[in-house]
C-alpha cells in the first residue's frame, strides 16, 4: 500500500468517509450525493464486501455502478430495491446512510427542510424533511458537509428538526437507549463524531494542514479532541485507482469549490 503522491481533498474525504461503514457487515449502504456514494462504493470494494448498494434508482448491484454518464457500461442487477422495499430496509434498521444536511446542531439534529423561524412561511424552502425523521430513529446515519462553517454547524438549534439527535428531552417516552445512532461526520476540515461525554462532538482526525482551532472557530458549538486525535489518512494509490473506476468522469472534482489539493499548501 503506497500512499498516493498527489490527491485532492475530495479524494481524501471519500477515503475518510468510507470508514463510516467499517464494521457494518451486511446491510443496505446508501451514500446520497457524489462523495458519499463513492465512499460507500469504496468501502464495499475494499473492506465491507457485504454492503448492498443500489444503482441509484430501484435495483441492487454487487458491482458498484459508476457515477455520471454510463456510456457503454451496463449495470448488472442482483436484486430489487424499489421504494416500498427501501422503507422495509430503513425500518428494520439494516441500513446505514450518509447524507448532507444544511444545518446540524450540537445535539446532532439535522435540517434539510426549510430555513427561518416560521415554518408556515419559511425564509428559504429547502427539500422538506424527506425520509430524515424515520431514518434518524431507525438506522445508523453519517453525514458529509462540504462547507464546515458556523452556518452549517450552528450555535443554536436547527430551524426544522428533520433528523432526531441526542436532545433526549424531545425523545418519546420509553424510547430505546439506542434510539438515535450517529456515525461519522465528515467535512472539508475534519472527521468528527458525537461520541464524547453526553454525546458531545469530538474531533477524530484533522485533514492535513488544518488545526483544531480552525475547526473550533468554524463550529457554532464546542468541540472536544478525541483521545488519539490524528491526521486524516492520505489515500493509497490503490484507493485512488478504485475511486477512478467508480468515478470515470471525475465528478468528484466538482464537489468542493476550486477542487483543492488534499494537502493544504502552507499559507
Amino acid at each position: 500500500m503506497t500512499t498516493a503522491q498527489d490527491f485532492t481533498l475530495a479524494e481524501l474525504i471519500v477515503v475518510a468517509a468510507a470508514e463510516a461503514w467499517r464494521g457494518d457487515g451486511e446491510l443496505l449502504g446508501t451514500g446520497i450525493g457524489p462523495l458519499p456514494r463513492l465512499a460507500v462504493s469504496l468501502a464495499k470494494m475494499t473492506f465491507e464486501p457485504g454492503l448492498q448498494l443500489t444503482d441509484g434508482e430501484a435495483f441492487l448491484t454487487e458491482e458498484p455502478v459508476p457515477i455520471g454518464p454510463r456510456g457503454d457500461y451496463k449495470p448488472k442487477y442482483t436484486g430489487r430495491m424499489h421504494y416500498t422495499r427501501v422503507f422495509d430496509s430503513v425500518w428494520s434498521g439494516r441500513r446505514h446512510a450518509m447524507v448532507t444536511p444544511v444545518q446540524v446542531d450540537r445535539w446532532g439534529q439535522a435540517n434539510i427542510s426549510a430555513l427561518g423561524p416560521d415554518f408556515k412561511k419559511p425564509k428559504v424552502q429547502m427539500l422538506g424533511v424527506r425520509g430524515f425523521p424515520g431514518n434518524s430513529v431507525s438506522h445508523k446515519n453519517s453525514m458529509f458537509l462540504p462547507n464546515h462553517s458556523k452556518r452549517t454547524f450552528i450555535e443554536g438549534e436547527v430551524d426544522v428538526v428533520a433528523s432526531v439527535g441526542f436532545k433526549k428531552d424531545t425523545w418519546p417516552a420509553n424510547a430505546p437507549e439506542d434510539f438515535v445512532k450517529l456515525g461519522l461526520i465528515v467535512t472539508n476540515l475534519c472527521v468528527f463524531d458525537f461520541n464524547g461525554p453526553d454525546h458531545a462532538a469530538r474531533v477524530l482526525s484533522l485533514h492535513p494542514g488544518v488545526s483544531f482551532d480552525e475547526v473550533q472557530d468554524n463550529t457554532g458549538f464546542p468541540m472536544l479532541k478525541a483521545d488519539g486525535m490524528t491526521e486524516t489518512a492520505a489515500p493509497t494509490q490503490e484507493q485512488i485507482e478504485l475511486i477512478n473506476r467508480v468515478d470515470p468522469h471525475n465528478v468528484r472534482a466538482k464537489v468542493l469549490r476550486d477542487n483543492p489539493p488534499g494537502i493544504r499548501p502552507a499559507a
Partner: protein
Amino acid sequence: MNKEMSLKSVVAELRDGMTIGVGGWGPRRKPMALIREILRSDLKDLTIVAYGGPEVGMLSAAGKLAKATYGFVSLDFIPIEPYFRKARQEGTLDVCELDEGLLYLGLRAAGHCVPFVATRVGVGSAVMSNNPDFKTVTSPYADGEELLAMPAIKLDAALIHVSRADRAGNTLTFGPDPYFDEFFARAADKVYVTTEELVDTIASEDPEDLKANLFEPYLVTGVVETPLGAHPTTMHASYGWDEAHLKAYAASANEENGWQPFFDKHIAGDEQSYLESVGGGEHIRTLPIPTF
C-alpha cells in the same frame, strides 16, 4: 364493464374541496394530462396528497390548492419544485409536511380501514410540531414505548397513470419501481386511471406479465386513454422527463406573473395543442430516461 372515460368526464366528477391523491414520484409517472384538465377547469380548494412533482407546483400556481400533503415536492434535477417554493416562501400554501414513509403508512391505514398506524417514524422530529393534530399512543405491551399514531390519509379520489389498461379497469405499470400507486388506489373512494395505451384486454397466458399489475380493477372507477399523458414527467419504457421543458417551466416561476403566459402557451388549449406546443409526440418519445 366499460369504464372508459374522457379527461373532461373525469374532471366533471371531481368537486371543489376534495382531497385528491396523485400517483408517481417527483418527476416520474405523473398523470399530467388529467392534471392539465384540472388546470383548465374551475375546480378549486383542493387538497393534494403526493410524492410531489410538477403537478403540485402547477396546481398551486393556478390557485387550485387549499392544502398540500406531501413527502416532498421536487423535480429531482431541479431539487425544489419552483412554484411550490414560491408559494411556501410567500406563506400562501397550507401544508402537511410528512416523512416520506409516513405518507405511505397513512395511505396504508386508509386502505386497511383503520384510523391510524403506530410507528416510531416522526416522533422527536418537526413532523410532530408542524402537525399539531398528530397524537401519540403508548404501546400496551411491556415496553411502554410512545409511538406516533399516524392518521389514515383518506382520499376522495386518486389519479394514477399506467402503461397499459383495458376498459374493465385491468392495468399494467411498467418500469423499475411501482412507487406508491397501489396505496393511493387503496386509500381512495374513486380511482381514475390514465393510460399510455388502451387495449381490448390485458389478458396474458404468461403469469410473469401480470407482475406489472399493481391493483385490482374493482378499485378503478374510470380509464382514460392518454398517450404521452405523463409528459413532462418520465414514463418508464416509453420516454424520459423533458428537461428543457421543465427548465422553461421553472424559469417562468422567476418572472412576475410568469404562470399565466406558461399556461396560455402550453396548457390552455387541449391535449393535442399541448403536445404540439412541447415539440410533438415523436420528439417526446426520443426523450432519454435519466440514469443516476
